[in-house]
């Protein structure tokens, strides 16, 4: 049994605000506050006594974030089927809506709270392959490989067949009859995928997007992208997904973008793509030199990339992708859920020089450099998190983690079972990360509104908890704006939200930012809120810097913009509990860049850090009564990353 203790923080970070705020102003006509004397007249200006009759008047900005997952696999994905997933898209949507389902391992599963949206993104290559093989498709069985796998599965060697299938696919050695776009089996799988989304989509309550994953894995290097439709099934069923196996498909993202352009033109649909797991791409996710032709990326690449890929999946089960200690040596929070042993199948080990082209922060920095060179920033993307779970279950809370594959659903030994193993390296089950979700500031919960918010990058990534994060940038935010009773209104009035742009700096002004974060109402308190700045120096070299902008527990932020004191740790690993006796429930502040140079390109994004909490491994150890080896991490510090705001001179 898991017991969590919640207590309200007793610490005041802004003690000056705490003093004297309370004046019995209901009776008196004016009052002195720490932000000046407020008389009746100015109060009326600030707060018109009577709101307009229509409750929605003047309220066309998003008022709450919607939480979801842009990346979930079901049994329709070849590899998921191989690892024993039985739940299809229909079950996946039911689970995300908050219904209880029976997981593939036979256990009952339910989310703590429903999600607001979900994209079932099964692999486009071999979509529907498993149902076809298991059904004894005559064409497949006529091939030696197909026959062999079928016989293996039928004689209880399913696991062996599964591995062989995945490896054969990786080498591009699939048998004739393998479902490809245009074949009846493929069409039927795609149609079922669409139908499941159409059925689950419930505008205003739950959004079920139509989508798939284009799984480019050239040489085991992860260049995967998920493709999402804004539209309904009528448009999505006019095409079949783009695959990576030639001749119909291609592993080169340029070809995916061509296909996207063609699809939009041919069907009138609107689609977007988002990549993930640069950490397993071995230096190829955010290239300066394109891996496919060995040339420096050109304007055409940059234009297409930024047009089709407005977002990037910054955190998920296969590790966190914000930054790496090698790239950010002065960032003590950089070493988070790191997967840096090699590429996706561990056939090639990682070299330090690859890292720069794999992580969010360095890509954003290189984007500034490329923009100076090409006139277009290819890496101007917003951030989301998602699961990439292959179980049909979008379950990544630390105390409710259903793993990456159906064979890593909760069990006593999943932590110590190798997740990927090659002759070069091993990644253990415990290294999988219970992460993440996508938060989208949309005006309503519909496909159109959420998609549009994704396009304008008004999104942030969380590693699982549903914290609320606001981030606005402008030229006129003042510290009193942090005391405004309508932070969103002032934010949208005076600035641009996350994902937006600032340019033409007024003379003598530096950009200022309104930043606010609320903890997950059932989650842990917040340790601190940070702004990460990246810029392109006069010398053409990129730079980065971390600023603490709000810290909990009365700690001080030094003149260098940092608070080096740790928030502490209340985690009781043995019992998998923690208390909210440290940290803060909510934080709001205005921060002005103290080192601004109007001549230099820059970006700013927010990172919110939670206080330490038990990691999923601690919940496993407690529940199963097992002892895990010392190298297994048992605590975590969950976090959120917002989309950047860019400054362009």
């Amino acid at each position: 049994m898991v017991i969590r203790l919640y207590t309200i923080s007793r610490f005041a970070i802004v003690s000056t605000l705490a003093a004297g705020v309370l004046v019995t102003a209901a009776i008196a006509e004016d009052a002195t506050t720490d932000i000046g004397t407020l008389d009746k007249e100015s109060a009326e200006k600030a707060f018109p006594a009577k709101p307009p009759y229509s409750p929605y008047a003047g309220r066309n900005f998003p008022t709450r974030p919607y939480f979801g997952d842009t990346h979930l696999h079901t049994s329709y994905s070849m590899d998921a089927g191989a690892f024993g997933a039985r739940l299809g898209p229909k079950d996946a949507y039911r689970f995300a809506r908050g219904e209880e389902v029976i997981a593939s391992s036979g256990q009952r599963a339910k989310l703590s709270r429903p999600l607001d949206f979900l994209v079932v993104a099964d692999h486009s290559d071999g979509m529907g392959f498993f149902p076809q093989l298991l059904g004894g498709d005559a064409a497949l069985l006529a091939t030696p490989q197909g026959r062999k796998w079928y016989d293996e599965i039928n004689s209880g060697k399913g696991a062996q067949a599964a591995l062989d299938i995945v490896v054969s696919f990786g080498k591009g050695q699939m048998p004739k009859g393998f479902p490809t776009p245009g074949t009846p089996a493929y069409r039927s799988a795609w149609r079922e995928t669409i139908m499941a989304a159409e059925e689950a989509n419930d505008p205003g309550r739950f959004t079920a997007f139509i989508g798939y994953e284009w799984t480019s894995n050239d040489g085991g290097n992860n260049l995967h992208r998920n493709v999402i439709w804004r539209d309904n099934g009528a448009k999505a069923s006019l095409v079949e997904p783009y695959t990576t196996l030639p001749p119909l498909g291609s592993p080169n993202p340029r070809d995916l973008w061509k296909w996207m352009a063609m699809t939009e033109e041919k069907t009138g649909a609107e689609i977007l793509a988002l990549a993930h797991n640069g950490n397993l791409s071995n230096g190829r996710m955010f290239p300066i030199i394109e891996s496919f032709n060995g040339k420096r990326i050109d304007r055409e690449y940059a234009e297409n990339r930024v047009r089709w890929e407005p977002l990037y999946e910054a955190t998920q089960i296969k590790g966190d992708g914000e930054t790496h200690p090698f790239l950010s040596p002065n960032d003590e929070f950089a070493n988070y859920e790191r997967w840096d042993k090699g590429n996706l199948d561990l056939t090639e080990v990682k070299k330090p020089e690859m890292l720069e082209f794999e992580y969010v922060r360095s890509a954003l920095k290189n984007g500034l450099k490329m923009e100076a060179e090409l006139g277009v920033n290819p890496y101007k993307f917003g951030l989301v998190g998602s699961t990439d779970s292959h179980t049909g279950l979008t379950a990544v809370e630390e105390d409710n983690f259903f793993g990456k594959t159906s064979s890593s659903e909760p069990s006593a030994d999943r932590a110590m079972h190798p997740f990927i193993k090659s002759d070069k390296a091993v990644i253990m089950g415990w290294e999988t990360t219970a992460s993440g979700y996508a938060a989208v500031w949309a005006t309503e919960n519909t496909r159109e509104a959420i998609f549009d918010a994704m396009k304008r990058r008004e999104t942030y990534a969380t590693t699982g908890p549903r914290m609320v994060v606001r981030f606005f940038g402008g030229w006129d935010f003042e510290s009193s704006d942090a005391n405004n009773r309508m932070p969103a209104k002032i934010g949208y009035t005076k600035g641009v939200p996350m994902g937006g742009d600032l340019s033409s700096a007024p003379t003598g002004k530096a950009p200022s930012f309104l930043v606010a974060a609320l903890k997950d109402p059932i989650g842990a308190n917040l340790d601190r809120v940070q702004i990460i700045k990246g810029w392109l120096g006069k010398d053409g070299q990129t730079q980065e810097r971390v600023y603490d902008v709000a810290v909990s527990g009365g700690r001080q932020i030094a003149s260098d913009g940092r608070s080096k004191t740790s928030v502490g740790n209340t985690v009781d690993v043995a019992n998998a509990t923690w208390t909210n006796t440290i940290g803060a429930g909510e934080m709001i502040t205005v921060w002005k860049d103290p080192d601004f140079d109007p001549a230099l390109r820059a970006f700013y994004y927010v990172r919110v850090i939670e206080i330490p909490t038990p990691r999923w491994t601690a919940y496993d150890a407690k529940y199963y009564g097992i002892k895990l080896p010392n190298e297994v991490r048992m605590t975590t510090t969950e976090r959120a990353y917002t989309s950047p705001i860019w400054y362009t001179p």
Partner: protein
Amino acid sequence: MKLPFLREPLLHFLVLGAALFGLFSMLEKKDAEAPTKIVISASHIATVSDRFARTWRRAPTDQELQGLIEDDIRDEIFYREGRAAGLDRDDIVIRRRVRQKMEFLAEDIDGTEPSDEQLATYLVSNPELFRIEDRLTFHQVFLSANRRGSALEGDTQQVARVLAQTTSSTSPPTIGDPFLLGDEFRAMSQSDIAHTFGEAFVRQISSVEPGRWQGPIPSSFGAHFVFVDEHLSSKQPSLDTVREAVKREWMNARRVEAERKLYDQLRQRYQVVVETQPKATASEAGR
């Protein structure tokens, strides 16, 4: 043509049935002796358990093993039924037809489009599934636990006194702290309120009387005084407004029910004997 096999749970049973073909041939002798008797032998249980262990790299728990045995029985029953109907005969195409025919038994019902009357009945008999939640329009005075620290309790009492004397729906703008999501919440559903403020908060605010300041209601962020402007009670939607959702739930319920019925019917014809599993396996699984 619609190919329903992809989402048909029956498929999984039947596929497993095919996968266990070799095993069934072992059972065939017993079939001849007692065609409506199914014996799940101890050695078979061990085989099932081993197969599970090979796939999952651990022994099944008691519950899982029970599930596997139930699956086997189900496989066996469907498989025998299919054969008894003469639908087998060697080649793979026929085998697939057998499977499809069995699926169609359930799918026939599943494929039926529900009538308005059926949907209306379903809506009435499952009101909780479709109820339109209470929606609340309210504004608040928020006292931040973080900003006020140990002064929170005293400040809360003071605000309570101030607001008790206030008849106006607008609060004095000088009291309270900013809240990230603002102070006004319009037509917010109970589940949205719960997502934002927590479950305990929604229970409390749902019971306050509209038209005056009340509180404090605690949340994990601090103390909230609320003025509920309007509380729209939950209501049962008309079928027209929720037709798609009712249809989805109806179909799902039908699917589950059809499978259950079919299985129950078939199962009744069988006498099932499950032998006790070997002791060693039991303790292995229990560990």
